[in-house]
């Protein structure tokens, strides 16, 4: 028996009737969303509509929040995310996450990069160094930091810190990258750098990016999902190819939101 796993399909992530509660408070209600492999999917919607919470379900960070309770089903690459035999450590290697505020660890750039690699079994120094250089080049940080890898990561600028965090996640060769408003704390130049980074990652990774910036969603994403708060509970109103969602949305709520009438 292969435990009734659905066949690998075009979806990296699929949620079915996903509900999330913090304690007794419902935060997400009946979210059914399919995220296509290799594409960039953006999630838009007002503050408090459960976008961040939705991302944290997808790599089971909700396990760390004592009051969080999930029901419904989530499939990552066709596998049930909440099956009892899921190894969350492996899962989180495959599903990387970037937070709104960059969180470099309080030690050197080098150690920030190497610690996760070592933890995931890459012990060889040369291999580590190669991987670190590759991903730091991918995020456009290599030239800026190659001479000061031993310096503290806390000394980097906000934009550099965020790119370091992205590199740190990419170094683990994830299949899916969840990004929670990665540019919201950054200046326009850093934002542009991260946007073009996302463009260059397209195809190799499945990217889910939460953004408040509608123009950004239009620029970088293939698909867009719109979350809205219904009586304090986050719901998915509509998801569609980005062009369609912005030009010809099916739901009047979406139309109002993308035209800046509400929210």
């Amino acid at each position: 028996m292969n435990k009734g796993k659905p066949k690998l399909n075009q979806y990296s992530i699929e949620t079915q009737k996903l509900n999330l509660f913090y304690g007794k408070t419902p935060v997400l209600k009946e979210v059914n969303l399919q995220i296509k492999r290799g594409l960039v999917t953006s999630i838009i919607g007002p503050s408090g509509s459960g976008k961040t919470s939705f991302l944290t379900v997808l790599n089971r960070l909700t396990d760390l929040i004592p009051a969080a309770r999930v029901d419904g089903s989530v499939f990552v690459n066709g596998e049930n995310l909440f099956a009892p035999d899921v190894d969350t450590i492996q899962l989180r290697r495959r599903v990387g996450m970037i937070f709104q505020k960059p969180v470099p660890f309080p030690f050197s750039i080098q150690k920030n990069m190497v610690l996760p690699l070592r933890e995931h079994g890459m012990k060889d120094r040369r291999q580590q160094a190669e991987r670190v250089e590759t991903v730091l080049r991918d995020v456009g940080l290599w030239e800026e930091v190659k001479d000061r890898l031993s310096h503290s990561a806390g000394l980097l600028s906000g934009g550099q810190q965020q790119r370091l965090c992205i590199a740190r996640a990419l170094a683990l060769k994830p299949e899916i990258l969840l990004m929670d408003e990665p540019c919201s704390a950054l200046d326009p130049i850093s934002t542009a750098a991260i946007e073009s980074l996302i463009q260059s990652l397209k195809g190799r990774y499945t990217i889910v990016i939460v953004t408040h910036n509608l123009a950004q969603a239009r620029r970088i994403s293939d698909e867009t999902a719109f979350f809205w708060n219904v009586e304090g509970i986050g719901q998915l109103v509509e998801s569609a190819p980005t062009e369609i969602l912005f030009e010809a949305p099916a739901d009047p709520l979406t139309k109002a939101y993308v035209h800046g009438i509400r929210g």
Partner: protein
Amino acid sequence: MLCTGVAVGVGLFFFWLIGDIFLKGAPGITWEFLWDEPENAGRKGGIAPVLVSTAAILLVTLGTAVPIGFGTAVFLAEFSQGKTTLGRMVRRALDVLASVPSIIFGLFGNAVFSHWMGLGFSILSGGLTLACMVLPILIRTIEAGLRAVPLSTRLSAAALGLSRVAVLRDLIFPAAVPSLAAGLLLGLGRALSETAALIFTSGYVSRMPESLLDSGRSLSVHIYDLAMNVPGGDTHAYASAWVLIVLLFSINGLTALCLDHWGKTRMRGL
């Protein structure tokens, strides 16, 4: 105005007290005093065995309190999410214990370590009793340090698939080192100046101890004995108090230095 007056008053009082001890104690401080055995109940001779006993008692205290304290703090901060009954019970118990007078610890240590465990009046009994006494402060301070690691750091670490062990070892323990040092300072200070708890456990034999199972007189017990029970012991009581205060100051200064150093490294860190 009044507050300033009170503050100045407190400051003056502190300098008067320290000044008094330093002035009266200083003449008694010689190499012989630090190097020799006490004679004539401490009126003559020195305090070498007392220093050795004190050090041995503190070592026993640290040797037991640090690992137990660290372990308990990690349990409280990391493995009992604030709501488990066990966690709550332990925390409540510690808060009560922290305010129990030392004489009670002395009686407890005497009953449990000296008699029940058969360790008698010994450095070991005294050290273990002091360990019980300083544990509450130590645990609560370390726990606070562990808890100070922000949730965002923990979430980022988990999102990279770091194991619990790696998170503890590389992110949480290093962050707790300054609070461990602060807890140690508080604990050591309390242990070093403790008299009541030791009279019943490590006793007051002033010979040079030969093992941890020998009775040994700590510095504070020595001062107490000279001041209260030995007519004409004043000079040496003051000299011993001088040594005690210098020790306390050095521990204080050393810890401040360490905290400063770590503080700076962590600031550079983030």
